[in-house]
């Protein structure tokens, strides 16, 4: 979707402001939200693609004005309600009012900590040979799906070079839409800055994206 989350190349957000000796969490609740998100990730109530899309679906005004972990919290709470794992009246009451639903992977306990600290694999079996090879010139498609996609706006409709081939991965556009993994070849595609930003682009700059095969066509 052409949402405000897709920020590459936008102007007006000001300077980048590094914080010296920044704490891991600025408030206690941020750590709890992170931990709950990781735990929910392990019990697979939803996928990482669904969780990203849920944040993209927030209104632009909310997205731009609320703290990072508040968006995570709202996402978690809304998806837990949507999936029937908790109910809105329980949120109102601040306590459980009815028994739990069965979770696909069972509850999250101390024994599951290892699953939090190591990322899983997104490799999936190939459904066919790769269409492109390293060194190929490719054009990203000019697509504007109203659903989740990982092809950023600034990199649509541009010609680049295939630089790396990463095997076949679960395809976020499909997973977030509830249509399953639909595994796709994944490439690094590199663009010259002038191709993306025109003749006034910063000199000596190249930018790459990770592009799933359905985003690409032969030039």
């Amino acid at each position, binding site marked *: 979707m052409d949402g405000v989350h897709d*920020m*590459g*190349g*936008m102007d*007006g*957000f000001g*300077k*980048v*402001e590094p914080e010296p000796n920044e*704490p*891991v*969490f*600025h*408030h*206690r*609740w941020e*750590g*709890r939200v*992170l*931990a*709950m998100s990781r*735990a929910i990730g392990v019990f697979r109530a939803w996928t990482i693609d669904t969780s990203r899309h849920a*944040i993209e679906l927030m209104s632009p005004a909310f997205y*731009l004005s609320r703290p*990072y972990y*508040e968006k995570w919290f709202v996402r978690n709470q809304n998806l837990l309600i949507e999936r029937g*794992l*908790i109910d809105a009246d329980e*949120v109102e009451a*601040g306590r*459980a009012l009815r028994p*739990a639903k069965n979770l696909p992977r069972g*509850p*999250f*306990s*101390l024994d599951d*900590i*290892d699953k*939090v*600290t*190591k*990322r899983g694999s*997104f490799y999936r079996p190939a459904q066919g040979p790769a269409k492109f090879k390293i060194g190929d010139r490719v054009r990203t498609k000019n697509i504007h799906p109203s659903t989740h996609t*990982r*092809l*950023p706006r*600034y990199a649509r409709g541009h010609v680049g070079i295939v630089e*790396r081939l*990463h095997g076949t991965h679960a395809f976020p556009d499909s997973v977030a839409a509830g249509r399953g993994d639909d595994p796709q070849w994944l490439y*690094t595609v*590199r663009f010259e800055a002038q191709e993306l*930003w025109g003749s006034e682009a*910063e000199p*000596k*700059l*190249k*930018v*790459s*994206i*990770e592009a799933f095969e359905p985003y690409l066509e032969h030039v």
Partner: protein
Amino acid sequence: MAEHDHDHDEGSNLSEMELRVRALETILVEKGYIETAALDRIVELYETKIGPHIGAQVIARAWSDPGFRQALLDDASKAVATIAQQVGRVGEHLIAVENTLQLHNMIVCTLCSCYPTDVLGLPPAWYKSFAYRSRVVKEPRAVLADFGVTLPAETEVRVWDSTAETRYLVVPVRPAGTEEWSEAQLATLITRDSMIGTGLPKNPSEVA
């Protein structure tokens, strides 16, 4: 952060977010979906165990051991797994990209906040900021100036936008004058920002 460091969140004046988050946690625990102790452990891991010191060990090894450097550039997930006992556990899809005197790499996630958490811990706020995400793919040298970094005009800049589940780690240039340094000494030069590409390693004279 320890309890006593954020009194403004405690006592009778709990923030609205603290209250909302506590309520959700209470519901999830009462329903038996999660254990409080498990959440405590996750917070503790990210506050004390999983951070940029892991990446610094990886880079220091790459600077010291040409065989490891090549293995890291060929397949970072596999290479880091071989020293996992020392540095913790690293999952799939990690890719190391090497800076040279001619090339400077930077990483970003313009769409959300993808970051090589296994080796750097949780991202700093600026990495998730709208300013960084919007600007670094278009004007990385101006972004570097915000970090007080200026590159030679002839250096090529390469920005890697993490739009899939691949995660990038920058291997900075080893500072001159460190030929005799041990891995442990080298690790003290390697900052988090130097592994994202918004910084350079410390000058050896700063830590010697």
